[in-house]
């Protein structure tokens, strides 16, 4: 593959234009040579060795068959009886120009030619650089060809699957490929530019042009974050919908059959087509760019005097400069492509984690069906996370709390307190350590401002409500690469001058660990009261929802078992519970912030409803 374009352009006329491109500043032109050589531009060179080499390379790089080369050589020598002689004179640098001019009284100059007329054309050519050159050309063409193919596939994906299925199930398509059309647009442009470059350039020049094009579009490759994230999540929805919605499955089957027929007609391929294979293509393509370009970089000749080292992973996009040409530029482009793919990979990973956690958090609420303003905000299903959270709190109650306080007091920053510091600093909460290891949280002046900023950076923080100036914040953040769910309960009204310090607490769920920092809970007995409250809440809820045998939350403070969902009701038997341990003043405050959660629930609700339909 990758040679299709070559084959269509191996005519001698094409060959002529190729040579002209090779040396732009033409001086003289052959006037009356008949075809196919009248396209040949002859130029005067001081260095005839150069001239010869260029032509030799041009012919080598092009796909002209040996036979055709012979014909060109023969025509050249027929037209110019002195070619042989001239060719040998080309070998001597300078001085040969005058002799050549003497031999061509019409002051025409000979077209450049590769072959001494008396030698077999290929035999006389140096093999290594030539092989390298044509390999580079082939690799460049592979990039162009695969881009064309990808563009076709994307177009098919949009026209057939996206348009076809949108009519049947618009929400699904929105979830599955929200930006497929934009990707197509991006790659239409890229593909056109690449094909245009391939038509006018070759070898290093082509590689450089392709590099420039990729560099130009690379910032837009972040679109793939959205594509890949939705693709990975959407697959599940697609499968469910496929099973339950006969209209949809028929539309998919029709689209697949349509593409299969087109493949047979247009490509002579008869392989089964599946929507999955099409949907995954952008994911594959993004990863392919670095692979393809790496081969191109390898095939390029090394820079004569290196000025730039290839950028280290992760640094290319921030590099202050980009080498202008040659292998150094290609290395830079490669580094950018690798970084972009890595970036997409990492961001998709983070989104996956975030969504998983959100799902865990919102499940029960959604199933209660009423994300009303009045209920408390921290609601979790009877998941492993909740169990662990309860255990962690109970553990805290006994020995761990003391240990933790000690470690905080001693100033040795544990991992948990580092996370805490990161979060609180990030949203502008001031912490002040108290003598007994507890810390106070207070909102700084710029807290609301910071929160709104964080809110905009939806990648970093979800559902911190900028409108809220006090109360409970739910912060879902990854810091720096780990997902953290934190609840910040603070009392904004309190003020340093007031004798009673503001109280609150911060809970951090960091992957599997749940870290709770108590800020101003008076003593351990209060903790156990809260745990009891939590448990009774759980029991009450599960009773209310009439889960068979579900409500047996033990009152034992050392161990708590959460009722397991049973039987067919498993999917709907998610428990919800008030997990807020905040004391009375915060209960009223926390009600203000439900709107942020409601927003998240609403957006997830659409997704969920689709999954269940």
């Amino acid at each position: 593959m990758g040679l299709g374009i070559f084959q269509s352009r191996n005519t001698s006329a094409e060959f002529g234009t190729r040579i002209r491109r090779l040396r732009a500043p033409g001086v003289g032109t052959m006037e009356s040579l008949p075809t196919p050589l009248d396209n040949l531009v002859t130029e005067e060179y001081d260095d005839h060795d150069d001239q010869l080499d260029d032509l030799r390379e041009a012919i080598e790089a092009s796909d002209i068959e040996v036979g055709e080369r012979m014909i060109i050589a023969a025509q050249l020598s027929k037209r110019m009886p002195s070619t042989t002689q001239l060719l040998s004179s080309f070998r001597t640098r300078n001085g040969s120009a005058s002799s050549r001019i003497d031999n061509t009284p019409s002051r025409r100059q000979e077209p450049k030619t590769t072959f001494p007329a008396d030698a077999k054309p290929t035999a006389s050519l140096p093999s290594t650089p030539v092989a390298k050159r044509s390999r580079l050309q082939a690799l460049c063409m592979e990039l162009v060809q695969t881009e064309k193919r990808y563009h076709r596939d994307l177009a098919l994906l949009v026209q057939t699957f996206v348009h076809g299925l949108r009519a049947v199930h618009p929400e699904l398509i929105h979830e599955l490929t929200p930006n497929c059309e934009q990707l197509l647009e991006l790659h239409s442009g890229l593909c056109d530019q690449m094909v245009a470059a391939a038509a006018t350039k070759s070898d290093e020049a082509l590689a450089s042009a392709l590099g420039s094009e990729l560099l130009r579009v690379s910032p837009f490759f972040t679109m793939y974050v959205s594509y890949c994230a939705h693709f990975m999540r959407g697959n599940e929805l697609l499968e469910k919908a496929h099973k339950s919605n006969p209209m949809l499955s028929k539309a998919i089957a029709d689209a697949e059959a349509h593409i299969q027929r087109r493949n047979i007609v247009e490509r002579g391929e008869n392989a089964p087509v599946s929507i999955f294979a099409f949907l995954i293509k952008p994911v594959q393509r993004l990863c392919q760019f670095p692979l393809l370009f790496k081969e191109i970089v390898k095939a390029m000749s090394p820079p004569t005097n290196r000025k730039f080292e290839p950028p280290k992973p992760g640094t290319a996009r921030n590099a202050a400069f980009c080498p202008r040409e040659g292998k150094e530029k290609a290395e830079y482009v490669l580094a950018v492509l690798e970084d972009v793919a890595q970036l997409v990979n990492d961001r998709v990973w983070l989104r996956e984690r975030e969504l998983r956690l959100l799902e865990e958090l919102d499940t029960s609420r959604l199933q209660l069906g009423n994300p009303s303003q009045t209920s408390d905000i921290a609601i979790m299903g009877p998941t492993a996370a909740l169990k662990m959270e309860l255990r962690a709190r109970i553990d805290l109650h006994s020995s761990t709390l003391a240990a933790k306080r000690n470690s905080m007091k001693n100033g040795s920053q544990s991992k948990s307190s580092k996370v805490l510091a990161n979060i609180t600093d990030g949203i502008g909460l001031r912490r002040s350590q108290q003598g007994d290891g507890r810390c106070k949280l207070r909102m700084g002046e710029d807290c609301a401002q910071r929160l709104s900023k964080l809110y905009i950076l939806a990648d970093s923080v979800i559902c911190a409500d900028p409108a809220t100036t006090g109360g409970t914040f739910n912060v879902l953040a990854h810091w720096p690469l780990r997902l953290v769910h934190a609840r910040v309960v603070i009392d904004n009204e309190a003020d340093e001058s007031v004798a009673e310090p503001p109280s609150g607490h911060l809970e951090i769920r960091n992957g599997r660990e749940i870290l709770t920092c108590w800020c101003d809970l008076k003593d351990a007995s209060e903790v156990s009261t809260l745990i009891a409250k939590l448990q009774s809440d759980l029991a009450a809820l599960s009773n209310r929802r009439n889960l068979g045998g579900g409500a047996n939350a033990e009152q034992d403070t050392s161990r708590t078992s959460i009722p397991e969902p049973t039987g067919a009701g498993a999917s709907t038997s998610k428990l919800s519970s008030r997990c807020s341990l905040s004391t009375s003043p915060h209960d009223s405050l926390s009600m203000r912030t439900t709107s942020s959660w409601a927003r998240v629930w609403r957006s997830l609700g659409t997704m969920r409803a689709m999954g269940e339909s």
Partner: protein
Amino acid sequence: MAYAGSFDHLFKVLLIGDAGVGKSSLLLRFTDDSFEEHMASTIGVDFKVKTVVVGGKTAKLTIWDTAGQERFRTLTSSYYRGCHGIILVFDVNERETFNHLQQWLEELDMYATVQNAAKLLVGNKIDLQQREVTVEEATAFARKQAMMYVEVSAKTRAGVRQAFEEVVQKILDTPDLLAAASGETSSGIGLAKQEGDTGLCSYC
């Protein structure tokens, strides 16, 4: 290329393992019976289709290859979706690739959507005489993970066919997997439906 005709089962099989262990060579050897000595890295292979007959049953395999994208783990995890069979490949001459198998297995556990996908461990490149992993070691590792172990050489064809047939056999022996494959639950959505779509033949 004529349409492959009817088949009893349609299975999705995935090749995983470190870059450079010869996954693509293995795939090409099996599907096209070809071998390229200097295959640089896999580019552009989506998946290959091959029909095999095992125990009297015709199974159509769509065999996927992660195509050199191993380093983008999150993105490649989407390949695991709906896989019935998974072939873990390592290079018997590179201990490192053997050591990484555990990671691949963990990844598999995390992302595979079909329960109990049939797994097979394949040691490739046995034609090269620079072994760093012994047969016993690999067999012991495979046994611990309840996998079969097969040694192959994509270059000399040794064991290649057997490896793929082994996977098919294992899928056929696992009722859950068969159930998953017969429905439209897998990622091969719609693939199974194409059986009997005779209208296509007019284009052949």
